[in-house]
Each structure stands twice: as C-alpha cells, then as structure tokens.
C-alpha cells in the first residue's frame, strides 16, 4: 500500500499565493449589496411581462441557493427538493386559507416544517448510510410520496390545491399587491438577497467549514473532531428552510398551489439545473444559473411564437426551452463541471496567481 511514486521535490517552492483576507465573506457581502442595489430599479424599468420573469428568476434563485447549501456545500445530492419547496408552499397556503394566518407567519412556519422534515429524512438517510445515487433516489422518493399524499388528502384540498383569497388593495402584512406591482419584485429581492447572505454566512461559519470538510472526506473530518451527523442535519435543515421560502413566496405571487406544482419532480429538477448550470458549491453559481434558467422559458416562448425563418417549422411546438436547458446541462457538466460561475472564477483566480 506504500506510495511508490516518491516525489523528491521538497516543499520549498517560492512563496505561494498570499494569505486570503481574514474575513473573505466581507467582499462577498459587498458584492451582494451592489447586486441588490442594482436590481432595485428593475421593476420600474422593465415592461410588466419581463417584470414577471424577473420575479420568477428570484424564485429560482432562492430554490437554487437552498439546493446548493445541501448538495453543493454539503455534497448530499438531493433529487427531491420539491419536498421542501412544496412544504413551504403548502404550509403557508394552508395556514392562510384555512386559518387566516398572515403569509409571513406561514412562511416562517413553512421553514420550520421543511427544516423538520428535512432533518427526519436526513436522519434516516444518514443513519442507514445512504450515499450518492441511493441518497438521491431516497430524496426523490420522499418528495414523490408527499406529492401523492397531498393529492389524495382532503385535509389539504387534495388535487385541487389552494387558491389564495384576493384582498382589496395592497398589504405588506398579507403579502398581496395589485397585479404587476413592483412590490412583489422588491420583496422577492429581499428574500433572495437574504438567502444569498445566509449562504455566505453559512459557508464561512465554523459549521459551514465542517460541512465542506465532511463533504470532502467524512471520516477524515470526523477524525479531527467534526461532528458529522449534527452538521449534516443542520445543513439539510437550513437548505430545506431556504427552499421553503421559495415555495411560500411562490404561493403568494401566483396565488395558487396544487400538489403537482408544489411537489412535482420538475421543481426538483429546476433547483438542480439552476445550481448546476451556474456552478455547484459556489456562492454565486445559483445566482448566475437562476438568471439563465429563469429567463430561458420566456425567451424560447417568444422564439416559438414568432420563430425566425430557419426555425419556422418549430412554430406552435413546445419543449424547446427544456431541450435547451437539457443541452446546456449536459454541455456544462461535460465541459465545465464547475458551472459557468465556478469555471470563470477559477480561471480568474489562476490568472491572478500567475
């Protein structure tokens, strides 16, 4: 077992890169602040239809940030984030419609429920040592079970789902505004900004560092004192809670939720694809991915409605947006496994080092 390829190079190369700043998160927070500020005037500039796309992008963003915490930082590949999205959506919708609870409270409750469910699923998966594909399949199975159960549970309106009752005028407390109001975008922006900020905080916290170490090598991390189970559970809980915010906001924005929209596998796939295209395990990957994936279906829809000459045979057909993001997904995984942001960031870092 001895390593025979002995390398004789003594570790005495000229000094490597300079020490990173003590608090690398400060720069990331600054970038985040700039991005948020730049985004603030968007709904006033964009035409209403594009404004809706912008909100959709932010919803994607929150989902992808949630997924990325568990699967990117934590390395626990989830194929069932629809479970947490759906729990957020359903908890808030149920509390609002059945009990008149403010959607903000509903959102918080949704986060708690999603975090709890994530921890239960996580606990059993880790306890029974499910890894890789098996873990992915288990998460998928749980999301699907939730979909099937809600579909046939009268207690949550079965397959009909919930329609959020309309109120007169606008109310921040009820999270409802006139159609096309920029307030939706701003609230989504705050939530998304909060999610990214949370992911920055987490990544640079002691817990976040443990989680990344556990991802890299679980036994080695445990052997230097990283509490494995506790941190994995913390990660899935945080991830579930953030994703639940996306679900709760989705319900308030679209005012309607049903089992397929909440727990359908396409929700999980959207979260995955967004994060992967942007860059798994990076802070900004989900942001980049959300902008691309979120606007893609709108772009292809216009493309298909009025196709250019050479694509005229596509008129009135569908699936192009999914095809494009499938192709993008495959190409990116094959050619830029760190995603668009991850690969670019690495390039820049390498250049700086030279």
């Amino acid at each position, binding site marked *: 077992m001895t390593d025979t390829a002995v390398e004789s190079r003594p570790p005495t190369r000229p000094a490597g890169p300079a020490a990173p700043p003590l608090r690398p998160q400060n720069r990331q927070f600054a970038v985040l602040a700039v991005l948020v500020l730049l985004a603030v005037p968007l709904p006033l500039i964009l035409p209403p239809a594009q404004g809706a796309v912008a909100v959709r992008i932010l919803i994607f963003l929150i989902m992808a940030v949630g997924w990325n915490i568990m699967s990117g930082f934590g390395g626990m590949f989830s194929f069932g984030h629809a479970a947490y999205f759906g729990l957020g959506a359903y908890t808030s919708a149920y509390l609002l419609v059945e009990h008149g609870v403010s959607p903000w409270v509903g959102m918080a409750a949704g986060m708690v429920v999603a975090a709890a469910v994530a921890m239960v699923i996580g606990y059993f998966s880790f306890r029974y040592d*499910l890894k*890789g594909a098996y873990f992915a399949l288990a998460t998928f199975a749980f999301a699907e079970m939730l979909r099937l159960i809600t579909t046939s549970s009268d207690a949550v309106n079965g397959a009909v789902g919930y329609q959020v009752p309309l109120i007169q005028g606008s109310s921040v407390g009820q999270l409802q505004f006139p159609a096309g109001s920029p307030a939706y975008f701003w609230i989504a922006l705050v939530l998304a900004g909060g999610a990214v900020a949370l992911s920055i905080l987490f990544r640079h916290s002691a817990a976040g560092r443990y989680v990344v170490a556990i991802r890299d090598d679980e036994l080695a991390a445990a052997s230097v004192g990283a509490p494995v189970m506790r941190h994995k559970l913390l990660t899935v809980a945080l991830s579930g809670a953030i994703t639940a915010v996306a679900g709760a906001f989705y319900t308030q924005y679209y005012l309607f939720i049903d089992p397929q929209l909440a727990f359908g596998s396409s929700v999980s796939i959207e979260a995955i694809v967004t994060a992967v295209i942007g860059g798994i395990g990076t802070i900004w990957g989900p942001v980049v991915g959300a902008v691309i994936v979120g606007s893609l279906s709108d772009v292809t829809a216009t493309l298909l409605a009025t196709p250019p000459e050479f694509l005229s045979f596509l008129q009135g057909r569908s699936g192009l947006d999914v095809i494009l*993001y499938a192709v993008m*997904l495959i190409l990116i995984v094959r050619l830029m*496994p760190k995603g668009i942001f991850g690969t670019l960031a690495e390039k820049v870092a390498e250049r700086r080092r030279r």
Partner: protein
Amino acid sequence: MTATIDSDAPETRAPSATVAVLKRAGVVGALVAVAIAVALIQSGSGIVVWQSVVTGLLTGGLYGLIAMGLTLIFGVLDIVNFAHGAMLAVAMFLSFGVVAVTGLHPYLTMLVTVPALFLVGALVHRGLLSGAGGATLENQLLITLGLSLLLENGLLLFLGAEPKNVTLPGETHLDVFGAVVSGSRLYAFLGAVALGLVLYWMLQHTRLGTAIRAVASNSPGAELVGINVRRIHTLTFAIGAACAGAAAALAVPLLSVTPTLGEQFNITAFVVVVLGGMGNVVGALVGGLLIGLVEQLTTIYLDGQSSLLGVFVVFVLVLFLRPQGLFGRRT
C-alpha cells in the same frame, strides 16, 4: 455501501450465500402470502384478489423487462441511468412508426428497435458518459437527467403529445382459474422471462458475459488481465439500452405511446433495480413481479391512493434496510 475505510482486510464470500438467498426468498414469499391474505380479508372477494395477483404479476413482468437493461448498466458501470425511461419512449415511438409505416407485426419491430437502441446506447456512452466529464456519480446523474429531458422534449417537439396506440393483431383473452389474462400482456410477460434468461445465459456462459462480470466486480483487475474496460462499458451500456428496445416492442401494444411515458416507468424501474439488487437481471425480474404485486395490493388496501405510494413505501424501506437489494450482497 459501507463507509470507505482503508481497511487492509480483504473481503471474502460467505460460504452459505445460496442458503441465505433461499432464506430471504422464503421470507419474501411469506410476506407476500400475508399481504395477499390481508387483501383477501379487506376486499372480501376471492376473484378480485386473484385477478389482482395475476394482473400484478403480469404488470410486474413488464416492470422487470424494463428494469433489466437498467440494472445491467447500474451494476456494471455504476451509472444511474435517468434516461432509461426516455430511451424506452424513443424505442416505443420507433416501434409505433415502423408498425404505422410498414404494417409489421408489433413484436417484429424488435428487429429495428433492438439494434437502433443498441446504437443509441453505444453513442450515448461514448459521447457523453465515458471519459473525465462522466466520472463522478453526480455528473452521470446530471448527464442522464439532461439526456432524459432532451429525449422526452425532443419527441414532444417533433412528434407531438398526441397519444399513439398500436393494437396487437389477433388479441385474445385467456381465462386462468377465473382471472382474465389478455394475450398481449402474457406475451410481454413471457418475453420478459425469456429476455431475463438470455441475459443471464449471456452473462454466465459467453466470453463477453465473463468480461462484463469481471469489469463489474473489479475493473482495475479486469484491465490488468487485458480486458478493454472502456469497450466493455460501452457494450454494456449499449446492451442495456437494447433491452429497452426489446421491452418497447413487447410493451407497445399495451400502452399509449407518449413522449413522457418513460417517466411513468423510470422510477418504478429504479425501485425494481434496487429491490432486485443492482446488476442482477434475475433479481430485476423478481423485483418487478414484487412491485407489480405491491401496486395492485396498494389499490386494494388504500382506496383512493395512487398505487405508486405503496411502491415508494417499499422503496424507502428497501433503501434503508437492504440497500443491496433482496438478493444482493453488501459490497
């Protein structure tokens, strides 16, 4: 599945493997018997339960058929092929197209679908899954996921969503002690058994099969004794895809052909694969039968619930308690 510990203890095969398998088969058999008995009490009608069992087994054969290719790929390449269902859909469209254009007997379209899917499988493996980009499990998962989205939506884009149907010429119905069995389902079932036997024979008694098994159990070792691992991987993937081709021709008279039909079978097929033990074609067949039964019994137990719910419950239990499958050994 055990934690990766650099243990210096080599693993050895338990001498009583066959006994253990038989014992587990006994346990499973007993569970099934109990489940059927409970269903009898619940429904109160012998003929209904009997028909459910027969239907469950026949549908289960179909699941086994579809899962065989998947389990082969899973077992040898360790790839969770999310595109398997989409490949099945492609093959079904192909089969439908051949029937529609040439009027060939649906089963004979196998002559087209099997080689075509073999080729597709080989191309997919060579083009997308081999080499560095296809190395990690996450990447394979993502690539096959992308591929399934691509194939499904490609079918949708070019062929439309309208369901297409193929009828089996000379469809008959048989009476099996009061239960009705339609010919097409019986043939598909028999086809599944035959395909299982062919694959089993191929793996056990041909040079290719030996090479595949060698690669599955220890690919660096196989490399050392002169087996071209990459070629075996491509061949295995192609054979797995070709199985989907065969399954498509056998199943095409049973189902409405739609671009998304793969979704319906994909997850069930995964359950079957895990249940039967990855890489185990006979296990896939047995797992398929069990899942078929579970589905049917779920509809008796839980009226109003989707039959899939029972499947997922079984799936999660198996994942947690016996991730190596009913007939597999812990690796």
